[in-house]
C-alpha cells in the first residue's frame, strides 16, 4: 500500500490469511455440547425473578426437591385422612411443623456445602435465602390449604394455621441460621409448635385452640418479627475460626 490516497492493491497478493483458530472453534463446540438446557420451570422462574441465577438456586433448594415434596404431600395427606376420620384438625396441626422443617432445610451453612463461596457471590446469599424461604413457604401453604380443603375442616381452622405457621417458620429459620444447622432449626420449629399446641390445649382444653384463639395472633406476630430479625442479623456475618 503506497500512500493514503492509493487504493488497496487489488492484485491477487492478498495478505495470507491467518489459519482458523481451531481452539476457539472447539470451545464454541463444547459450549453447546456440554451446556445444560434449563427446564421449563427454571425458565419461568428466571423470567419471574429476572435472574437465571436465582432461578437455579431456587430449584436446587433441598426442600423443594421432588422427594421432599412427595414426603410433604404424604404427611399432609395422612393428616387429611385422619381429620376426615376423627374430626380432629390434623392438617392444621401438622402444617406448621412440616413447613417449619422445610424452611430450615431451605438454606443455611449446614445445607449448603459451598457456603463460604456463596458468601462471595454478586447475587448475595441473603437474596437466595429470601427467595427460597418465600418459595418454600408458598408451596407448603398451598399444599396445606389443599389438604385442609380436602379434609373438610372448618374455615376458621383452614386459614387459622397460616399465622402460627409463619411464626414457627421464622423460629426455625432463626435457629437454623444461628446454629448453622438445618436440623436444629427443624427441631426448634417443630418443638416450638408442639409446645404451643399442648400448652394452649392445657389452658383451653382444645387442640385447635392454638389455631383459632384470636388472642394468640399478636404473640405469633411478635415471634415472627423477632425471629426474622435474628435470622437477618445472624445471616450477615459467617463466623470463622482463626488462620
Amino acid at each position, binding site marked *: 500500500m503506497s500512500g493514503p490516497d492509493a487504493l488497496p492493491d487489488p492484485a491477487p497478493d492478498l495478505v495470507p490469511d491467518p489459519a482458523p483458530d481451531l481452539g476457539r472453534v*472447539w*470451545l*464454541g463446540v*463444547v*459450549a*453447546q455440547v*456440554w*451446556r*445444560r438446557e434449563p427446564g421449563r420451570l427454571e425458565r419461568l422462574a428466571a423470567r419471574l425473578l429476572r435472574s*437465571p*441465577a436465582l432461578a*437455579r*438456586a431456587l430449584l*436446587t433448594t433441598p426442600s423443594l426437591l421432588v422427594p421432599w415434596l412427595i414426603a410433604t404431600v404424604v404427611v399432609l395427606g395422612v393428616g387429611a385422612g385422619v381429620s376426615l376420620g376423627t374430626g380432629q384438625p390434623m392438617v392444621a396441626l401438622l402444617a406448621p411443623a412440616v413447613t417449619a422443617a422445610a424452611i430450615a432445610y431451605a438454606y443455611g451453612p449446614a445445607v*449448603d*456445602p*459451598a*457456603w*463460604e*463461596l*456463596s*458468601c*462471595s*457471590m*454478586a*447475587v*448475595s446469599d441473603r437474596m437466595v435465602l429470601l427467595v427460597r424461604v418465600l418459595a418454600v413457604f408458598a408451596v407448603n401453604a398451598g399444599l396445606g390449604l389443599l389438604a385442609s380443603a380436602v379434609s373438610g375442616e372448618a374455615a376458621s381452622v383452614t386459614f387459622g394455621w397460616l399465622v402460627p405457621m409463619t411464626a414457627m417458620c421464622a423460629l426455625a429459620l432463626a435457629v437454623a441460621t444461628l446454629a448453622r444447622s438445618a436440623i436444629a432449626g427443624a427441631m426448634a420449629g417443630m418443638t416450638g409448635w408442639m409446645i404451643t399446641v399442648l400448652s394452649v390445649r392445657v389452658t383451653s382444653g382444645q387442640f385447635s385452640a392454638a389455631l383459632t384463639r384470636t388472642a394468640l395472633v399478636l404473640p405469633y406476630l411478635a415471634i415472627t418479627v423477632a425471629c426474622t430479625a435474628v435470622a437477618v442479623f445472624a445471616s450477615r*456475618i*459467617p*463466623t*470463622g*475460626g*482463626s*488462620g
Partner: protein
Amino acid sequence: MNIELTDLTRRFGRNQAVAGVTLEAGPGVFGLLGPNGAGKTSLLRMLATVIPPTSGRMLLLGRDPRSYERRREIRRRLGYLPQNLGYYPSFTVVEFVEYFALLKDMPPGRVPVAVAAAVERVDLGGKARAKLRTLSGGMLRRVGIAQAIVNDPELLLLDEPTAGLDPEQRVRFRALLRDLGQHATVVVSTHLVEDVGAACTEVALMDAGRIVFHGTPAELTARGAADGAGDSPLERGYTATLASARMTGTRS
C-alpha cells in the same frame, strides 16, 4: 492498584487473627506465605468480601466494599477459591461451574463458552459431564479453580489451591497462574514454598496476623543462611525471616 489495604485488622472474639496489615498489589501473582494460624485465610476472606474487617481501610479494584453496590461490583470481578470448598455431589463439573458463573452475574449469553473455557483450562475437559461425587480430590480442587476463573476475574484469590494436586498438575497450575497474572491480581495463599518461588512475582510472609516480609522471591531467598533450616534456598529464606521476626517481634 487492585488491592489497597491500610492497617487492616480482624478480630474473632479475643483472637486477633489479622493484626494490622498494610499492603498494595497490582497485576501479577502475589504469594502469601506463612505457618498455620498466621492469619492468611482471614486476610483472604476479607479480600473476598466474605467477612468485613474489624478496623482499617480496604479498597478492592478501586472500590470500597462497605457499600452494597460497590461490593456487588467487586464480586462480579472477583474469583475466590476457599480452603475448604464443598461440592454439590449430584452436580456435574459443568453444572457446578455454570451455577457460580450465574451467581457472579455473568451475562447468561456468555456463560456457556466461559464455562467451557474454564473447564478446558484446568484440564477437566474429559470429565466435563461427570458428577462431582465421582471425582478425586485433586480433580475437585481443579473444579474449584475453574469456578474461580470462569468470569475472567480482575482479582483472583486462591487459598491453598494446589492441595491434592500431583506434581505435574502443580506445574501446569503454575503456568496457569502466570497467564492469569498478566492482567489480574492473583493472590495465592499457601504453605508450599516451592509454589511461591515458581510462579509469584511478589511474596508476603505472614506470622501472627502481621506481615513480616514483603518483597520478591529473590529477596526472600537472600535472607536465608546457607546452613539454615530448609530444603531449598527460598525455604531457608522463609525460615530465617520467620525466626528473626519472632525473636525481635518486628515487622520488616
